[in-house]
């Protein structure tokens, strides 16, 4: 059991070894605003160095298109209530995000609100002045 536990601990250490601070700048996102869109979770990649949430959203033309949102690392998000299946594929959610400056469909993932009313926020807060800043994850110059 001891060997098994140590082996699993080692593997976990590798998985969660992503740097606590972002490895790249977040200047490509418009930090002056937070937008909200609603849709269905298509895929949630709970991976290093950054999690990615893909959401199917019906646009104003009635077409379903995929939006993609970049979050923190799993090691940062897990302490804030996120997990591999939370949000889950197929769930209807509302996403709060800082939009891409280049106009593409996506942005910096700030929050997810579930139909139950539960809300999980990013490691940089919810974007509306609330939420927790995970230590080591936020640098003002970003």
């Amino acid at each position, binding site marked *: 059991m001891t060997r098994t*536990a140590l082996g*699993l601990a080692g593997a976990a250490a590798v998985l969660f070894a992503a740097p606590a601070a972002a490895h790249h*700048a977040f200047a490509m996102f418009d930090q002056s605003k937070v937008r909200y869109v609603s849709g269905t979770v298509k895929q949630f*990649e709970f991976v290093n*160095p950054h999690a990615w949430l893909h959401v199917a959203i019906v646009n104003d033309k009635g077409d379903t298109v995929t939006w993609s949102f970049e979050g923190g690392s799993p090691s940062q998000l*897990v302490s804030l209530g996120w997990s*591999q299946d939370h949000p889950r594929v197929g769930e209807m959610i509302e996403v709060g995000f800082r939009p891409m400056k280049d106009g593409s469909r996506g942005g910096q993932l700030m929050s997810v609100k579930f139909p139950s009313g539960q809300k999980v926020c990013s490691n940089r807060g919810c974007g509306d002045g609330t939420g927790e800043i995970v230590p080591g994850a936020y640098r003002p110059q970003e």
Partner: protein
Amino acid sequence: MRILAFVVFALLLAAGPASAWEEYKYLDQGVAIQFPAKPQAMKSTYDSVYAKGLAAMIYSAEDDHVVYKLTVVDLTARADMGANFLNEAANRLQREGEVLFTDFPRVYQDARSVFGVSLVVDRTDGSRVRSSLYHHKGRLYIADAIVLPARGDNDMTTPSRYDQTIRFPPDGRFD
């Protein structure tokens, strides 16, 4: 001890399955970047107004009508001209079509920072390229994500994901 094993196992599950995106490390080129599919490696040459036939490596993969390509140009013979090579490459790119967006990305932080330039260009052939260029330790790195006309969706976010995954080993080796 059983509790510890359970907690660790739960953390492993929480990390989830690996994405189709996978990081490829090119230690000999001083760079790592993620691709959505296994890239092909090809020796090439790079022409500049400053020098012809510079040794280069190209790593590329295509996924769902988007081409992801990393070009690494060896500038060791002209290390003093690095900024000019980078700006020349950006200048060429902006001439390929309409420039939609320009950014100056940063990899790492503080004294380890490596700064570059990104452009998003709608080319005359209907493709859209998002290109990020860096000059670092005697090499020019050009990370292109090209949305082909067949994809029919130039506003997809995936191209920006590609160039955001690039990293350079600050101390000469990867973590």
